[in-house]
């Protein structure tokens, strides 16, 4: 996952606000142009030439350049780019503002997993009236499915995170490990590596909701089924079971480093070879280059290991979108900014800044595919990422209250990492907690 799953200090507040966000409690007063008729491209141009000021809440660093270029192109528009927090911190702030009825931005960055929560909470503007559905062909299927909710389009994809396996080649060469093509081989490598060097681990994991759901996604599981206000959660389906069986071996045999992703120890482990692989989204190279510069040249990229030899299934891990808030008084300008940043010139700015695109034209462009990564010893890693983007398993759904669900992951599944609780029991506890919360929020729940 792109952000830390749990922040204890925020938990209490999150609950208060999540309750307020739920379907029933959250009817924000619309001060914007509302759900009026369709707005044409010329309508957007008029808005842009008239000018105005919009506020964008986002933590994505490459947006700075996008805003500069946007303001240069449309000098009458002023964009106030605010980093109101990363991930769930920003969601809490956003929910607070929505609940309070003012102080919300015009545009907000929202990760795909959290989009459903805000869309069904009626905080976001359906972009269909701007013709956003026509853009569907421009984006790779994974991100596009994520922004299409209940027949509407509630955001434009900003980046994507098709998964790949990042591995430390120096460690693999030293211990004569083969790059795994299946998860069974991955477990074998994990055993071999840890036996050869007790300080080295195949990867780190202390329980990460985003990672777990991405892995189940790749395995073909559909634990979440959402249809309107009908929600079911079932972590015993065959896909989830595949993941649970394999990962249980790694956890029980203590083959994963007890280090949380994004911590300083994590960056340390990535640098000194004690964490040998990462199954992560394609946005990771920029983080490796800036966070672990000392290991430049050590790492390589490989396709994600498969659950069955010869398959080529993948899933998305992280990635975020830009959405227009329903309470915005400048929705036309806000959408014009979205289009510029995620479908227009801004997308190029962001790729140059190291972001991984969601646009098919860029994913397939020769220049993009041929890009050699000095950090990966000159490897053309985008070829692997681009293939992964094409083979994302379809049909995955997140809960309409996934932000809450992820926040209780460590209290439930997390136990499997620190005690003898089996992973399957942990998932069952997570399932129960998710169902219970959904019922309390007025969803029709089942299993």
């Amino acid at each position, binding site marked *: 996952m*792109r*952000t*830390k799953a749990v922040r204890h*200090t925020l938990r209490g*507040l999150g609950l*208060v606000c999540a309750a307020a966000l739920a379907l029933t409690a959250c009817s924000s007063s619309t001060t914007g142009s509302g759900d009026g008729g369709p707005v044409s491209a010329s309508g957007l141009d008029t808005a842009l030439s008239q000018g105005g000021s919009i506020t964008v*809440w986002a*933590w*994505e*660093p*490459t947006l700075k350049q996008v805003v500069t270029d946007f303001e240069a192109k449309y000098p009458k528009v002023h964009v106030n780019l*605010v*980093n*109101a*927090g*990363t*991930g769930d*911190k920003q969601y809490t*702030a956003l929910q*607070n*503002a929505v*609940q*309070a*009825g*003012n*102080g919300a931005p015009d545009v907000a960055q929202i990760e795909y997993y959290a989009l459903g929560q805000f869309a069904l909470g009626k905080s976001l503007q359906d972009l269909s009236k701007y013709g956003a559905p026509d853009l569907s062909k421009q984006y790779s299927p994974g991100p596009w499915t994520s922004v299409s909710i209940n027949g509407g389009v509630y955001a434009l994809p900003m*980046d994507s*995170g098709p998964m790949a396996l990042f591995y430390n080649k120096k460690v693999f060469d030293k211990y004569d490990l083969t790059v795994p093509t299946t998860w069974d081989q991955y477990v074998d490598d994990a055993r071999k590596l840890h036996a050869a060097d007790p300080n080295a681990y195949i990867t780190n994991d202390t329980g990460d909701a985003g990672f777990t759901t991405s892995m189940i996604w790749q395995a073909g599981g559909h634990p979440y089924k959402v249809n309107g206000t009908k929600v079911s959660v079932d972590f015993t389906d065959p896909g989830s079971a595949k993941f649970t069986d394999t990962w249980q071996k790694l956890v029980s045999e203590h083959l994963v480093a007890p280090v949380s992703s*994004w911590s*300083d120890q994590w*960056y*340390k482990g990535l*640098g*000194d070879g004690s964490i040998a692989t990462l199954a992560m*989204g394609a*946005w*990771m190279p*920029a*983080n490796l280059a*800036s*966070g*672990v*510069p*000392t290991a430049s040249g050590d790492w390589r990229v490989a396709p994600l290991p498969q659950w069955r030899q010869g398959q080529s299934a993948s899933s998305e891990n*992280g*990635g*975020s979108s830009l959405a227009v808030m329903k309470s915005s008084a400048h929705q036309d300008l806000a959408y014009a900014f979205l289009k510029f940043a995620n479908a227009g010139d801004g997308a190029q700015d962001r790729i140059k*800044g*190291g*972001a*991984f695109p969601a646009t098919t034209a860029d994913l397939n462009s020769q220049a993009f595919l041929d890009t050699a990564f000095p950090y990966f010893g000159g490897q053309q890693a985008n070829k692997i990422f681009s293939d992964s983007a094409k083979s994302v398993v379809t049909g995955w759904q997140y809960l309409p209250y996934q932000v809450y669900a992820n926040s209780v992951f460590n209290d439930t599944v997390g136990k499997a990492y620190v005690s003898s609780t089996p992973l399957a029991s942990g998932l069952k506890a997570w399932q129960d907690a998710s169902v219970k919360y959904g019922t309390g929020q007025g969803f029709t729940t089942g299993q």
Partner: protein
Amino acid sequence: MPTATDAPARARKHSTDVPRIRRRVHSVDRPRRSVSVTLLAGLVVLYTVVPLAWLVISATKTQTDLLGSPGIWFSGHFALWDNIRQTLTYDDGIFGRWLLNTLLYVVLGAGGATFLAVLGGYGLAKFGFRGKRTVFALVIGAVAVPTTALAVPTFLMFSKMGLTNTPWAVIIPSLVSPFGLYLMWVFASEAVPTELLEAARVDGAGELRTFFRISLPLLAPGIVTVLLFTVVATWNNYFLPLIMIKDPKWYPLTLGLNAWNDQAATAGGQPVFNLVITGSLLTILPLIMAFLLLQRYWQSGLAAGSVKE
């Protein structure tokens, strides 16, 4: 750090029989040695000093060395000055802005809270009026309510008033310090003899003049104590600004450093742990200074009312 128990101990020395203590050899100046107490004190010292030492040591390391060298000892490369320079210039020097914001919140918030606590505490201690018991009950009740619990309702109220995301949203709630008021109340009843006030009145001084010329100097140790309390609380305030302030331009240091820390946890973000650590060190320096400079008042203020004379 010397503790508040020094003062009463010294008082006991004067009141006890000096020769008998000499016979026992042990005195306040030559206390009995106790291995267990020394060990315990040593542990407490270690417990308090190690995190501070870690902070100071880590602030001398570059981002790379931070991850590549042992935590509690220096790496070969001494980068403290470079870290401080980077902290002050990173992101267009936003750290300086955060420092000024914090100072603004402290001066207006903590200063205002102290001022109000002194006025209120003095009034409650030295004047009789109807409803005093009710006020007392309210203040004691308010001391028991954690400010964190009030943050969300305050946010909703301020949001309706259009005050969120402005400095006022942090300053106004900081102005209220029930504990400070209570402390001043207790302190004023002890430190300002009613006879003195009566004498002043007989000599023809007005209430304001009496307050500023007679009472205020007597209250000084208590004021410094309350000031330290409120300054520390405002300087370290995290939850209230977290809820109220969205614009990094108005962040206090606590929020700003946290935002830098979070940079490491997002796609495309740049980990700047070295700047977070150096920034933290710079953030606590003014507090340490305040404590060292004012500890004399701090102690006498804390002990106020503990000994019935």
